[in-house]
C-alpha cells in the first residue's frame, strides 16, 4: 500500500507572497504559514514554515515560539530584530538583511520592525505544528491574565493594567504610526 500513501503524497505548497495569507493587514503586511495541517507530509519531517512580508515601519509584535526553534532567513529588504533570552538579556539587536539568517531558539522572545518598504522573510520551524505566543496585542498573554494579577505583577494601578491589556488593537502586525507613515 506504499504507493497509495507515500508515493503519491502531496509534497508541495506555495507560501510565497502571492498565496492567500493567513494574517493580513493592508497597512502592515501579511503572513502565511504552512504546517502539517496544510501539507501532511510535514508530519513525517516534523517541520513547518512561515513566510512574511512587512511594510516599512510595520512591526511583528513581540512573541515566542512555543514548541519550535526557528531559522529566519531574510529574502528581501531589511528589518531590525530584537531577541531576548530567559534571563532577560538582549541576545540580538540588529539588522537582518537579505541573504542572512538568524536562529531564534524555542521560547526566546523576538520582535521585528521593517526598515525597508518591503521586508520579506521565510522562517523554518522545527515542529510540524509550530505555534507562537504573543506578548503584546489583542488575545496576547497579557490580555489573558486578570487585570488585578497584572497590576500586582507589575506593581501598577488598575488603570495602567487596563491600558496594558487593551491599548493595542492589533494581534500580530502593528502598522506604522501616523507620523512614521507621513515621513515615509
Amino acid at each position, binding site marked *: 500500500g506504499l504507493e497509495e500513501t507515500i508515493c503519491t503524497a502531496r509534497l508541495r505548497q506555495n507560501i510565497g507572497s502571492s498565496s492567500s495569507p493567513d494574517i493580513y493587514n493592508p497597512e502592515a503586511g501579511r503572513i502565511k504559514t504552512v504546517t502539517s495541517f496544510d501539507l501532511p507530509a510535514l508530519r513525517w519531517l516534523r517541520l513547518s514554515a512561515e513566510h512574511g512580508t512587512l511594510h516599512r515601519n510595520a512591526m511583528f509584535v513581540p512573541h515566542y515560539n512555543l514548541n519550535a526553534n526557528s531559522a529566519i532567513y531574510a529574502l528581501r529588504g531589511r528589518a531590525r530584530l530584537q531577541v531576548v533570552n530567559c*534571563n532577560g538579556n538582549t541576545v540580538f539587536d540588529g539588522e537582518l538583511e537579505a541573504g542572512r539568517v538568524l536562529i531564534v531558539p524555542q*521560547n526566546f522572545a523576538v520582535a521585528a520592525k521593517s526598515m525597508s518598504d518591503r521586508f520579506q522573510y521565510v522562517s523554518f520551524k522545527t515542529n510540524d505544528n509550530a505555534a507562537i505566543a504573543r506578548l503584546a496585542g489583542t488575545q496576547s*498573554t497579557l490580555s*489573558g*491574565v*486578570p487585570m*488585578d*494579577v497584572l497590576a500586582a505583577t507589575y506593581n501598577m*494601578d*488598575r488603570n495602567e493594567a487596563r491600558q496594558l491589556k487593551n491599548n493595542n488593537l492589533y494581534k500580530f502586525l502593528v502598522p506604522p504610526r501616523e507620523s512614521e507613515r507621513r515621513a515615509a
Partner: protein
Amino acid sequence: PQQNECQLEQLNALEPDNRIESEGGIIETWNPNNRQFRCAGVALSRCTLQRNSLRRPFYSNAPQEIFIQQGSGYFGMVFPGCPETFEEPQESEQRESRRIRESVQGESRRIRESEQGEGRRFRDSHQKVNRFREGDLIAVPTGTVFWMYNDQDTPVIAVSLIDTGSFQNQLDEMPRRFYLAGNQEQEFLQYQQQQVRGRGEQRRGREQQENEGGNIFSGFKRDFLEDALNVNRHIVDRLQGRNEDEEKGAIVKVRGGLSFVTPPERQSRHQGGSIIEEDEDEEDEWRRPHHQKSRRGEEEERPCRRGQKCERSN
C-alpha cells in the same frame, strides 16, 4: 540522556541545594546537573507561597507537573490564541449574579469603588482561572504562561517537575524559566553558569552573571515596546522592571488581595474577607467514579459511563 549518563552505581536521596528568597515566599531547586536528574531528564523545584502572595507569570521550555503538597489558592494559565472566556458582567447584571469575587478588601475595593463612582468602570475579561487545593496535580504545557496565588493563611507548598527530556523541549536539557515580570534571579541560572564554566567558557559565564535577573520584556528596547503595546514610557518601565522597588523576586506580596472573576463554588465559607472552598466543584463531583457492586458482591470503583445504569442519574 547522553551516553553513560545512566550508568549509575548508586542512587542518593537528595535535598534541594539552592534557595532563592522573594518578598512573598521561597523557591528551592535541586541541581539539574546532578547525574541522577540528567539520567531521568527531569528537573525539580519547590515553591512556598505565603498568604496573599502571587507567583508572577512565567513559562518554561518543557512540560511541567506541579503537585500541591500543602495549601490552596488560585492559578491561571494563558493559552496562546484562546479567548478570554471569564467576563465580568455589566453593573446591572452584577447585582443579580451569584458570581463571587474573591478577597474583596482594602485598597483593591477602594480603587474599584472610585472607578465605579467616576462612571468609568472597566469590565475585565481573562482566560480561565482555577482553584487548587492540597493534593492537586496541575499540568502545565510547554511555553504556557502560568501564575498562582495563595489567598489562604496556610502557606502553599508546590513541588514541580520539569520534563526537560521531553520532545517538546527543543533546547538543551537545562530547565529554563522565562519570567514576564520582575528582576528576580532565575532559579536555575546558577546551574546554567556552572555548566557554561564546566565547558571552559569563562568569559561568557561572567558576562551572563553580570546581566542576570531580567524578565522577558527587559531585553527589548523601550521604543519597540512602546510601539508594540501602544502604552506610555512609564508603563513600559514597569513592564521591564525598572521600578525603584523592583527587588521583590519571583513571588510578590499583594496588598489588599486580588480580585478576579471566579464562578460560585458549591460549598464555601467566608473567612477574613476570603472565600474558602470546602468541596470540589460540581464538574469534578460528576466525574468522580461511583461505587458499584461487582458480581462477587464487592464494592468497587468503576467510572459511570454513558449508557450504564449508575447511582446518579443525568
